[in-house]
């Protein structure tokens, strides 16, 4: 996954942009994320149905992937069956 690549969920409206990826394969709602959303959405895995939030950054514990959610959806993001967590940003004062 090259930084800047956009990936879509195969089960919902979720869309992410890869900030950091490497060779990892991420899933949304239990199904691998794809470049082009299928005409018919796949079934969502109830274990990964907590939803994705726009503007949040999602990371794995090891720090191998970082995704920015650019469109929210019903599925939640995971890597190798483990849910990704949101990354806390360190707030900076606005300088613009």
């Amino acid at each position, binding site marked *: 996954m090259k*930084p*800047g690549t*956009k990936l879509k969920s195969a089960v919902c409206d979720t869309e992410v*942009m890869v*900030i950091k990826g490497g060779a990892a394969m991420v899933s949304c709602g239990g199904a691998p994320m794809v470049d082009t959303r299928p005409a018919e959405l796949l079934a969502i895995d109830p274990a990964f149905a907590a939803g994705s939030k*726009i*503007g*949040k950054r999602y990371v794995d514990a090891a720090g191998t992937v970082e995704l*920015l959610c*650019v*469109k*929210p959806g019903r599925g939640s993001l995971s890597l190798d069956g483990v849910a990704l967590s949101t990354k806390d*940003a*360190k*707030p*900076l*004062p*606005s*300088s*613009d």
Partner: protein
Amino acid sequence: MNLSLILQMAAEAGPDMIGLVCDGRRWTYGELWRAAIGAAEMITQSGCGHVALLDENSEAAAIALFGAALAGIPYVPLNYRLADADLASLVARIAPAYIVGDADRVQRLGHHAEHVVLTRPTFVAEAETLGEAAAEPPEADEPIAVQLFTSGTTAAPKAAVLRHANLLSYILGTVEFMSAGEDEAALVSVPPYHIAGIAALLSSIYAMRRILLLPAFDPDAWLALAAAEHATNAFVVPTMLSRIIARIDEGAKPDLGSLRAIAYGGGRMPAEMIDRALSLFPDTGFTNAYGLTETSSTIALLGPDEHRVAHRAGDPAVRARLGSVGRPLPTIELEIRDDEGRPLPAGERGEIYVRGDQVSGEYKERSALDAEGWFPTRDAGWLDAEGYLFLTGRADDVIVRGGENISPGEIEDVLLTHPAVAEVAAVGVPSVEWGEAVGVALVVKPGCAAPSETELRTLVRDRLRSSRVPERIVVRDALPYNEMGKLLRREVRKLFQA
């Protein structure tokens, strides 16, 4: 990566929220996004290689910026304050261009037939109409988002290019999406052709902080807009702050109760002015931002708490930080290096080098990055023991007298302590004996007699070394600044040519 993502996300998250207020019209994020899509279609159909803006600030700046990004064409906001001849040479460098704004002026500059020229109202109206029906274009491949001609204080303007990846890294690294409260509104009064004007649009839209756009800076209009729209944030260059404070000193009593944060940058802020501002706005948080066009805006900042601590400090080292530009952003690496490019320890003056994803360091003709990705900023400065960065001028402004490097800033600081000196600029002037010697141009405070040359020379000799003593001194009514308050040293040097 494409910059349009910023507006697209805001339009997705809050399509009906007000994103921009200009000249009495309130634009929602959804309306801006549709207009950007419409603009992208017009730009693509024009077949032009650049999108230029020749206009004061308005919604057209945002629509053209994002429309150009969607179309995959570099956006080039132009400085409308330039003289015709200078402007014409810049326009020739971006032909054929899709130009939005002052159509009459483009005609006057000549060669207008090469370009596609639209007035602001036509561009905005057509973009809105087309945007109603147009489909979102597929993501463009073009890596360059913005091309800005540098102000050229030392030489002819360079075409600095900022990639989508640079600007997006800056925004994603410094702003949390939708982090602004619903009441937040940022007053933007920097011109659209300045990096701060571009960064202001991007940061505020990504934070979903309503933008209050002032077409062109004027202290009364600024105060009126801040009060009427309850601005909570503002960015100003030092000259703007000085003119705002002057109006308040003259008796203007604006209601600025909502103003929680003022960020400033773009030039040297005199210590007395920031001290005065901190006292005048005791409840406002001040942020000093240091950045360059080539670094996609801010790379170091001094935050509100650091301002107040320094303002109240008894310890001179802490107090001095009010004159610093704070510490580098966590996403930026920064080093001070000597003439041979070797890193220098804290306390030593040298050239500021930076590295990071937001740093472009690239011009149309060449990249200034070294093999390891470091950008030599040509700004001179030093870091204190706690990592606070102090600027001492442009590396190119260093006066080399008989092989000795002299920073104009140290001479200027000493001369400014003279009670009759209002403004001062030290530059290198040709000298048969030394190669270069120190020339000083100064402005005397109103009501004061000009100090004698002997008095000024003694002041410098007593505080610094004899090599710093100015060989030539001229007194003028004003020093040459550009409209952003940047001292034009090349113009100062001309004062000594006669």
